[in-house]
């Protein structure tokens, strides 16, 4: 068996009303996912500025995932629709610049989808682990 020493660092932005609650539900149901995932609570996925995503990579994140309510279910009616467009363009631009497209993801996770939250995180972490360390968007000054 091969030992993989690499532990990725994943930043997950979760909207307060659906995805953060979904993450809580995953906890309530004791559905485990890797501790590499660290969640930041935002009121709505539309609060996530592309600069935050880039900031996370700069500071050493290996993957960034944004979770929000399912389209149509936004607590603020339309926030996640804006998120969807913003992140579509951002991700496409990162891909265009040659940044691995697997490192960024948007998932819609409702407050009832604890299992989806856990499986999404498991999947994302395993994809990033395969991909390895983020080299293309790193800022060497921030390395320890």
């Amino acid at each position, binding site marked *: 068996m091969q030992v993989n020493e690499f532990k990725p660092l994943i930043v997950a932005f979760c909207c307060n009303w659906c995805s953060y609650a979904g993450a809580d539900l995953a906890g309530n149901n004791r559905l485990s996912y890797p501790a590499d995932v660290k969640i930041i609570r935002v009121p709505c996925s539309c609060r996530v500025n592309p600069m935050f995503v880039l900031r996370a990579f700069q*500071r*050493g994140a290996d993957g960034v995932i944004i979770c929000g309510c399912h389209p149509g279910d936004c607590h603020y009616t339309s926030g996640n629709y804006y998120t969807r467009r913003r992140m579509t363009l951002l991700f496409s631009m990162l891909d265009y610049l040659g940044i691995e497209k697997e490192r960024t993801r948007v998932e819609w996770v409702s407050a009832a989808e604890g299992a989806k939250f856990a499986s999404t995180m498991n999947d994302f972490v395993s994809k990033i682990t395969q991909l390895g360390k983020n080299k293309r968007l790193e800022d060497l*000054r*921030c390395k*320890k």
Partner: protein
Amino acid sequence: MVKFSCEKIDLVFAEIAKTAALYIPSNDKNNKAVFTKWQKGTKLCDSHNTQIGPKDLFFPQTEDLMAFKASNKKIEIIDTRKESEDFVIFGVRACDVKSLEILDRVFLSEPRDSYYAMRREHGIIISLACTRPSEACFCTTFGIAPSEPGADISVWKINNEFFWQANTKRGEELLLKIEHFTTPAEPSEVEGEKQRISVLMKRLPLANLSTNGFGKGKTNELFEREEWAKLSEACLGCGTCTFVCPTCQCYDIKDFNTGNGVIRYRCWDSCMYSDFTKMAHGNNRNTRKERFRQRFMHKLVYFPENNNGLFGCVGCGRCISKCPVSMNIVKVMKKLGGNV
């Protein structure tokens, strides 16, 4: 003085590169000359001057000064300086050689800038006489002779031969290193070329540009001139002129929080930027006109005021060809100067 045929230049470069990092002007993919670290295959470009002068080899655009680390509520200060490696720059034109003299005045006078000084000590400059000045060149306005480029070694390229003349001890030592490629030459052999360049310079469109009306003691006369408003009207306030200028030496010092500590670094600043020299009370040049005026007053009046009449411009013409709105020091000098 020594000479060797042009075919040997790569061998000479290889020899120099054995003991020091060597930078030469070489064309990039856009056919623009840039100082490139020499390695086998790097082709010398001697037809036109580099996009940007050699300034950043001595005064990089960003440079770490020191670092701090806080642990357990204690601060540790780390010196980030590393002893610079020896390096050689080949192909520096007379204007850029002169620009280093201007930078030296700033950085090597007291208090001495140890970061700059360290690089100056480690760098050998091999100049190159101009063969084909651009229409934007006006170095002669500031008394610079492109036919006598100076620095540690002066170089002329005449037909199929390079002539190298050591001007300093470091230059002489370097010539010794490449001794086996060269044959002795007489200074008279380059006289014709010097003559040719001098004649050429007189034919340039900006050859008649004069510094009359500028220099020491002209502050009061020029400061309130109403033409500044008109001249600065088109200026976008970008930093292009400053960053391509071989003599601009202003920098800002900033802290970068890495999360695990702080890196204190400096980076080039531009007097065209709205927060240039911003202080606790705010900004002392609030309008674009004031910032625009600062740049030219600095080069043409304040710098000579403090440096025995030495102008802060070397006439390299870079700002002229790079300004997005084609507003430049020549237009300023013509508008405000004594005569044309």
